[in-house]
């Protein structure tokens, strides 16, 4: 055994040396997308790919692993080899909710985060011919007629659901009846058809039928470039900020130089003006956040969401 030690040491040194000397990436990088090809996440990643090819010597190989609202693909990323050659897109708050509520075999701590690329805020929308012109008017009406107004959400256990829980906590008198829809298309149709009176929808989705909708407020810290005339909820005195974020991540435990390299490349992409222009054209509200800021945001959201789920009695003790 003793005789082996120097051999091992040499091997280790050699390994480290090659690791340092050969610049990552030296082979194509697998990009796991947890949703179907052609979906919103895919479109965003495809735009990134264009600029990744500009800044990195190796291409991406797209691997689609859709299913169970992203759980299947996210698990794939969490369990991938920690060599930096498999990375993927994650959505927040999806990964937090799936960890708490859906027996997912990963937690927000299973990943090494690269950065955030999209912040798609929720907004409150009604039909163009609706009598409501402000969110306050809705809250007042709901307080006088509890449960009469129907709000359409994509869900359950989604960003919309979280925002709705937050609404219930902060505006306890304004009681709405919530109806869950499978996706944004169904939800938009329900609002247009009058099945629900308002929806909580994302910018990216309400823009599809924007001719027919009136967006009352955006649940963001600042106004959105896609709807510059729409005030934030905070501007109107309702303290709700809620959104869906797209981030990129690798399985936890990458070598520091590899993850830092990834972070550096992504940062350069996100600062490229052509990239930002392409994102805007595709209706993707981009917002860059570096890994540290993103991690603290996710931790903060985890605590908030845990509190909301406990309050609703949804979080079962394990």
């Amino acid at each position, binding site marked *: 055994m003793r005789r082996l030690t120097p051999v091992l040491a040499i091997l280790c040194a050699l390994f480290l040396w090659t690791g340092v000397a050969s610049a990552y990436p030296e082979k194509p990088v697998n990009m796991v997308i947890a949703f179907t090809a052609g979906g919103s996440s895919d*479109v965003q990643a495809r735009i990134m790919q264009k600029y990744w090819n500009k800044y990195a010597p190796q291409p991406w190989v797209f691997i689609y692993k859709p299913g169970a609202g992203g759980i299947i693909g996210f698990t794939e990323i969490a369990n991938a080899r920690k060599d930096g050659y498999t990375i993927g897109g994650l959505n927040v708050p999806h990964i937090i909710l799936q960890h708490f509520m859906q027996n997912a075999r990963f937690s927000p701590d299973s990943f090494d985060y690269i950065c955030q690329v999209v912040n798609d805020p929720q907004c409150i929308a009604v039909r163009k011919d609706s009598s409501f012109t402000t969110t306050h008017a809705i809250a007042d009406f709901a307080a006088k007629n509890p449960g009469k107004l129907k709000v359409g959400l994509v869900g359950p256990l989604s960003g919309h659901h979280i925002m709705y829980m937050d609404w219930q906590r902060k505006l306890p008198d304004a009681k709405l009846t919530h109806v869950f829809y499978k996706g944004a298309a169904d939800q938009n149709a329900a609002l247009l058809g009058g099945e629900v009176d308002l929806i909580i929808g994302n910018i990216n989705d309400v823009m*599809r039928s924007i001719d027919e909708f009136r967006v009352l407020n955006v649940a963001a810290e600042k106004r959105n470039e896609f709807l510059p005339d729409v005030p934030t909820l905070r501007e109107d005195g309702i303290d709700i900020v809620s959104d869906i974020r797209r981030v990129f991540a690798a399985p936890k435990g990458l070598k520091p130089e590899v993850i830092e390299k990834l972070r550096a490349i992504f940062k350069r992409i996100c600062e490229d003006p052509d990239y930002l222009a392409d994102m805007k054209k595709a209706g993707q509200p981009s917002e860059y956040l570096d890994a540290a800021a993103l991690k603290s945001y996710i931790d903060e959201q985890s605590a908030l969401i845990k509190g909301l789920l406990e309050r609703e009695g949804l979080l079962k003790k394990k």
Partner: protein
Amino acid sequence: MTEFIIPSLLNLIDPLNIVLMLLGLTGGIIIGALPGLSATMGVALMVPATFALDPISGLIMLGAIYAGAIYGGANSAILICTPGTPSSVATTFDGWPLTQQGRADVGLYTSLLSSAFGGIVGTIFLLCLAASLARFALQFGGPENFWLCLFGLSTIAVMTPDNMGKGILSGAIGLLISTIGLDPNTGSARFTFGTYALIQGVAVIPCMIGLFSFSQVLYLIGTDKTYIAEYRPQKGNFLNVFKYLVSKCKVVLLRSSIIGTGVGMLPGAGGEIASIISYNEAKRWSDEPSRYGKGCIEGVAASESANNAVIGGSLIPMLTLGIPGSAVAAVILGALMAHGVQPGFKIFSASGELAYSFIFSQFAVNLLMIPVGFVLCRCMARLLSLRLTLVAIAIVVLAYIGAYAINNSLLDIWVVFVFGLLGFAAGKVHLDTGAMALGVILGPMIEENLGKCFDLSRAAHGGLLQVMFEGGINKTLVVALLLSLLTPIVILRKNRRNRRQKEETASTAENAPTTELAEHLPHHWGADVLAGVICLAIALAFGLQYEGLEGVSAIFPEVLCSIIAAGGLYFVVKGLFKRGKNLRHEKEEVAWKNVFLITLAGFLYAIGIVFLGFYSSTILYIVLISLALMSSKEGIGKTSVKALIFAAVFSLAIWICFTNLLNVPTPTGFLF
């Protein structure tokens, strides 16, 4: 609108666009015909390619792929009883019997002409009535869609009037299977049988590949024939079919196309429901319903014209409101938005040239489909002149890789295998795989919309009942559903009357292409007992996993489990009771040895894909199964050489098609 017509028509005679239409159609038909590659996938795969084109050409090509794929699904439905896309389930009901009678060409031509007709009708509605129809489609909310799905489900009763008990049970089993995975109303995982991967649920397409393709392989191998079916094409059949459709099927075609357009407009329902409802209606209103299911041209025409009419329908809300009427329309919407085109009623003015070019191109595509489809379907009919074992082996390989390709999920390969066995067993004990598939397709929609009804009822005075029965559409659908449930009685009566008439006029010749009205023989008592046992086993397997479910997500599976258990018990008792009496019953010879061999090989193959990788295990599988199934006349040496050549050629073909052309990754293991 008028100012856009001429530039739009000029766009259509642009050689590039004509080439794109032809390529799109050809590619679409092939993708559609291959079980596992669906229309959605075909269109989604080509979206990135459109970014290199201008938006109009890109959209024209996507539209051509869409039309081609929906039609293409009929070819495999007719030739090997495997719907190429979920929209063609109903095509198998009459298309496959036609093939078995050696009249595959009649079925293929019928599907081609009906598809083109349906596509054109759908496009006419899109062109003329888009705005008003889109508004109407929005009236369909949760309750309306719930009743519509139930109406679709009531097809089971019409499909199997003399075997209704087992039909209903099969449908219930399908519905129960669809509850596996994350439940749509609370988001919690259920019925995962302790397998993490099952959290994604049983996907519809792999399940159907199993129920139809894989089980069909077992069935065909079990028949111990040399070829799938005799194929006796007759010259002039294309014209005969055309004449028959024009003279006898006007009403069926028109009705089915209108149903297709209507269902296509609804955001929740697509081609799979439209074709089934149209088939159902064609049979219901027919004077001789007993001809259906035995190779009736009207049946194929109804199903195929409806699913192509869905295309025009699904584009109506997509273009005018930004709400896709089908999964494919959703992908096209994504492509449209990526090109910076904003959907909305304004699209006909703001992007008028694009909108009208696209709509007119759909007319052109449907007309071009006739010659393109004619050539392709004659090529595909060659399949019938290949040796059965060869076809069977190839179907298994395609079924596995096709199922895998949808979600890149190894689980889906096991879904194919398990549902293949279930489908085969079900067929042997006269449970109905068509009804089962219907349940799997409609289950999620029924449960989701039922959940919406419960949600909505909290805001209504009259509670759930008010929500479910409010408004004209709901009442109409409920009445239609009730009438539909009474139909089996009408059909049985019509059958009896026709049989009497037939006996009276036995001597007069019939010129319509009908088949003999087979006298219905009671099933073997063992089949009943086995069917009952299967039902009880399934009810038990699900029943043990109720823990922790609540609300709609518990009620729905509980009701289904109870129905299945009760039905299972009934058939066990009925079977045992029948045993006492000595009844005449149907007999079927099955080459059990071959069935066992191909099942075992399929099992080992699925394991091999996980550990060895796709191509290496495919070659191994083909060689081994060829040796196992070889005829005694040829020696081992000769067979293995042949098998190796076949394996190599086939793997190469898959490698070119899947890995290179379609960019679909194949599973890798230790090897390749």
